[in-house]
């Protein structure tokens, strides 16, 4: 019996020691480390000199400036970004991550950073629309693991649209060009910068945004993700985002990248 008590006491001590520096860290925020998948211009990418650049990254820097802390960026591929956050490789995910119920189970999300609609692109003059009636019997390409894949498989595939999943977005574009696909579904800004504005995409155009979403598979908006055990950090980030809107800094950064408003005030209102 004594032995068990001793063991218990030892365990308590160990826990206490482990917890102590942790508590100190939470009190004094000196720097925020962001995990970024820097392959997604214009939101986040690496400049030729190896610096992190993009709309998301600029917003991150502005948030750090508001909080008067140091900003550090760590490159991390998107599919491993949540496990890496949980492994404490960085404090927050800043990588165009859309809030979805599944992700919200494992990560806490900040208030809205920005919002981009999901849109269909197809050959100019094809007359296709992102609706079941228009796409019936056609083949639509999506990138595996994206909310767009879930969307197409939830609403379109059961109703006679052929949905094909690809490993990467560039492969979707390649098959759209080769003619295997009639249309492809992805983020509107990604479609615009990654394909339509390149010489290859000259014959293609936005066919419309996906708006029908009763089951809410497209999620709400794009936000910063933090670990569930750090509500203090989340609160600070939320405060900084609100501040950026209030003092006009957000609009200044937005104007640097886009000629339209990327902040969806409607979605922000619905935020929990």
């Amino acid at each position, binding site marked *: 019996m004594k032995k068990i008590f001793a063991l218990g006491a030892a365990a308590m001590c160990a826990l206490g020691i482990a917890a102590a520096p942790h508590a100190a860290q939470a009190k004094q925020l000196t720097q925020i480390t962001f995990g970024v998948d820097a392959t997604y211009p214009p939101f986040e990418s690496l400049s030729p000199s190896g610096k992190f650049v993009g709309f998301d990254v600029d917003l991150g820097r502005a948030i750090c400036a508001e909080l008067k802390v140091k900003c550090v960026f760590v490159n991390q591929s998107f*599919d*491993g970004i*949540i*496990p890496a956050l949980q492994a404490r490789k960085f404090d927050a995910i800043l990588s165009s991550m859309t809030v979805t119920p*599944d*992700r919200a189970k*494992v990560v806490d999300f900040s208030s809205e950073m920005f919002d981009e609609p999901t849109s269909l692109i197809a050959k100019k003059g094809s007359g296709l629309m992102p609706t079941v009636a228009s796409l019936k019997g056609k083949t639509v390409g999506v990138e*595996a*693991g994206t909310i767009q894949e879930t969307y197409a498989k939830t609403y379109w*595939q*059961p109703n006679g649209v052929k949905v*094909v*999943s*690809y*490993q990467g977005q560039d492969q979707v574009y*390649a*098959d759209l060009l*080769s*003619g*295997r696909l009639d249309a492809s579904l992805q983020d509107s800004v990604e479609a615009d910068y990654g394909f339509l504005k390149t010489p290859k995409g000259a014959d293609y155009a936005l066919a419309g945004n996906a708006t029908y979403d009763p089951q809410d598979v497209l999620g709400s908006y794009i936000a910063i993700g933090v670990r569930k055990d750090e509500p203090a950090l989340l609160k600070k980030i939320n405060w900084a985002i609100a501040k950026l809107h209030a003092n006009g800094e957000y609009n200044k950064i937005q104007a640097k990248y886009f000629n339209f408003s990327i902040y969806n005030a409607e979605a922000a209102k619905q935020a929990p």
Partner: protein
Amino acid sequence: MIEILQQYWKPFLWTDGYNITGLAMTAWLLVSACGIGFCLALPLAIARNARNPLIWFPVWLYTFIFRGTPLYVQLLLIYTGVYGFGFVQHNEALNEFFRQGLNCTILSFGLNTGAYTTEIFAGSIKETNHGEVDAALAFGMSKITLYRRVIIPSALRRALPVYSNEIILMLHATTLAFTATVPDILKVANDAYSQTYNAFDAFGLAAMMYLCVSFTLIFMFRKAERRFLAFLQP
């Protein structure tokens, strides 16, 4: 693990409701590729051992090219490259064939394993015991009968251990199929992973399934070897 199993057992085994996926797709890829490979390899292995360079050289070139380049590159060439040619898209039959990712995948897997199998069979034909051939000739067998009754059966038996290796390597190679949008076991594992962010369970499950298939194949080949190679046992 339980959560993934509950949600994904069906796609992992045979279907996501619309397409064949998972284990059924992997098995179909393996069977069809190895079927094509075997049918291709048998005549080519005989041609590979011909004396006439006009016959053996093209076969040598085929096996050299397909064994000398990665399967991944071959798959990309056939799936993306060939379909990019104008004449393929304008020919009705070719267009229909190459439009489907599954056809491209089976074709490239079949050609690839065909090249390896050709070399395996050719090697074992070459090493046929001279005594057996002499005896058959002394019996007055024609060339065709000689191959049909003596050389081929004996060569295939002796090739069995190496051939079983090739089949298992082919099973592992089917993991490339999703490059051409074919939803095999690994694609379902990827889906499960991106849904739950639990990498170890999602891919661990896939690994277990591959292990089960490998084990079944090894077991079957072991049985076959016991039976067909009994005459070689000490």
